[in-house]
């Protein structure tokens, strides 16, 4: 069937009804100078010329030999198996299943993804995934207000500042009050009016929080308060206690670390998990396993759809009716490739390499590690000369760490350093060598 939305007759009828002469009259409000010469499209190119041009542009990308940048997106090794599987056109070209039961292959992949995430986190239920970690956190905030019928959400300091912006956007117009609270002020802010407390651990500054202890204290003074934990690099689950074994009600994470390239900061993968008792309020899609009526063959279906917006409409806890299918598949293949032993090995390497660098840096005069709590693969480093250090890193083919004053202007001369298993010992020693060049000179000479 052709898709012809309007023919001349209907267009003219509508214009007449509106009292307009031509279509362009609809755009009268746009200043003329913005419309003129807007589409400056050069003449077409031949295919070889076009490829040549695109290659030239792509060569302007700076590829670094090693990265010290984290802050939400991480460089981890991606097993070749991941790209091999997700590049199959059956998966690559598909979208989240709408005519669901016709897509048994993808439904099974999502079911396996849900199962493996559920096992990894020890949470009862995982959905089919969401856009990314930040939107998953925002969905958790909204879900907590629906579960508790309260409208105040506490965000602990240490949650990624960009995630807080996304939560603000999602909660805008929904009558949800967000409070950003430091750990010292948390207990003073708790009351029966609080829907949830959202904690990131390991947090934006690299600290591993004692979530079990914090949630115990919260539940003591506000038993119905929902505890939300966020992780931006869940490879740490290879060694850290899973959220399902401590009193976390909703666990969300950015799943980019599971086999997805950092690219230019996306696409990500929103991991969303919760307890069985909250199953009917979980946002997003869920895939279930079932049997044929005669019980002979097993199959996969979208289940509990009556929670979703296309059925429950304004009463749904979310307007998401999709998932991040290909990225979820990447995470599944990544985790299957590693296995539990492999993931523990990755996490251990992240810790060991990070701590090697952290301890050596602390010995260089003028450098100071600001974290007082245990860290995973990120830490805060106060530097004597941050500008020179960043410049020298780039010259030496190292992607420099994040300048944290980009987010916290008061924290001058502080870097958020990230080390993963992809950093070789050579690259760590190179970083140390550069750092030593700009150490504080106690003797006063240069």
């Amino acid at each position, binding site marked *: 069937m052709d898709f012809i939305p309007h023919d001349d007759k209907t267009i003219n009828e509508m214009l007449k009804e509106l009292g307009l002469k031509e279509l362009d009259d609809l755009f009268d409000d746009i200043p003329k100078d913005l419309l003129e010469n807007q589409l400056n499209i050069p003449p077409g190119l031949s295919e070889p010329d076009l490829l040549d041009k695109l290659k030239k542009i792509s060569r302007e990308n700076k590829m670094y030999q090693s990265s010290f940048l984290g802050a939400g997106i991480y460089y981890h090794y991606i097993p070749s198996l991941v790209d091999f599987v997700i590049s199959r056109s059956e998966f690559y070209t598909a979208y989240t299943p709408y005519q669901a039961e016709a897509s048994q292959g993808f439904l099974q992949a999502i079911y396996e993804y849900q199962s493996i995430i559920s096992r990894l986190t020890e949470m009862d239920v995982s959905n089919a995934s969401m856009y990314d970690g930040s939107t998953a956190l925002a969905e958790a905030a909204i879900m907590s207000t629906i579960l508790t019928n309260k409208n105040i959400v506490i965000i602990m300091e240490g949650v990624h500042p960009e995630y807080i912006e996304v939560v603000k956007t999602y909660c805008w117009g929904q009558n949800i009050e967000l409070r950003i609270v430091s750990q010292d002020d948390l207990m003073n802010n708790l009351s029966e009016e609080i829907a949830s407390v959202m904690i990131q651990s390991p947090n934006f500054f690299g600290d591993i929080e004692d979530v079990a202890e914090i949630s115990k204290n919260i539940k003591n003074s506000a038993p119905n308060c929902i505890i939300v934990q966020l992780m931006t690099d869940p490879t740490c689950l290879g060694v850290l206690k899973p959220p399902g074994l401590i009193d976390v009600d909703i666990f969300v994470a950015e799943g980019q670390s599971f086999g997805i390239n950092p690219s230019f900061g996306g696409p990500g993968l929103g991991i969303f998990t919760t307890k069985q008792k909250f199953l009917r309020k979980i946002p997003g899609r869920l895939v279930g396993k079932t049997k044929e009526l005669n019980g002979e063959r097993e199959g996969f279906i979208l289940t509990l759809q*009556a929670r979703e917006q296309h*059925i429950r409409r304004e*009463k749904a806890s979310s307007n998401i009716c999709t998932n991040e299918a290909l990225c979820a598949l990447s995470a599944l293949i990544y985790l299957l490739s590693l296995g539990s032993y492999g993931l523990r090995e990755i996490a251990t390497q992240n810790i060991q390499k990070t701590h090697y660098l952290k301890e050596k840096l602390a010995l260089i005069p003028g450098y100071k590690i600001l974290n007082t709590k245990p860290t995973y693969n990120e830490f805060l480093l106060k530097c004597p000369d941050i500008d020179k250090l960043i410049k020298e890193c780039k010259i030496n083919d190292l992607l420099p760490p994040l300048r944290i004053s980009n987010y916290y202007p008061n924290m001058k001369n502080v870097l958020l350093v990230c080390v993963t298993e992809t950093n070789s010992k050579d690259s760590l020693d190179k970083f140390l060598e550069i750092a030593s060049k700009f150490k504080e000179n106690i003797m006063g000479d240069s």
Partner: protein
Amino acid sequence: MYEIIKKVKNMDYNLPEDVKYTASHEWVRIDGDIGTVGITSYAQHQLGDIVFIELPNIGLVFEKGSHVAEIESVKAVGDLLIPVSGEIIEVNKKLEESPEIVNSSPFGDGWILKIKINHSDELETLLSVKEYEKVIESEEH
């Protein structure tokens, strides 16, 4: 499709005479100042296989017409609107484990909750079987 519609039209909903109805497909059986509330056979048929019922807490007081429970089927969600104002004194705990009783016995074991009626004059606003049959008829056309 035509066959299905025809079948629905000719269905016998076995509407009992001893209860009062609402246009939103609830029923209430009066016993003194206690009212037992459920959804009608027509409503359960429209919803299909019921998989979950979210019941209200005992002790809550509701105004006539307000939403007290949610009835979820495989493909839809319906609200239970309370037929008359009152306080929830009992909910059908069996439905937590076996919500499908509402499908098999909407006017009997599939009752949903009991209320203590606050304003007995509200009962006069409810529908008789004859009036409710007309509601179903108009919805089926």
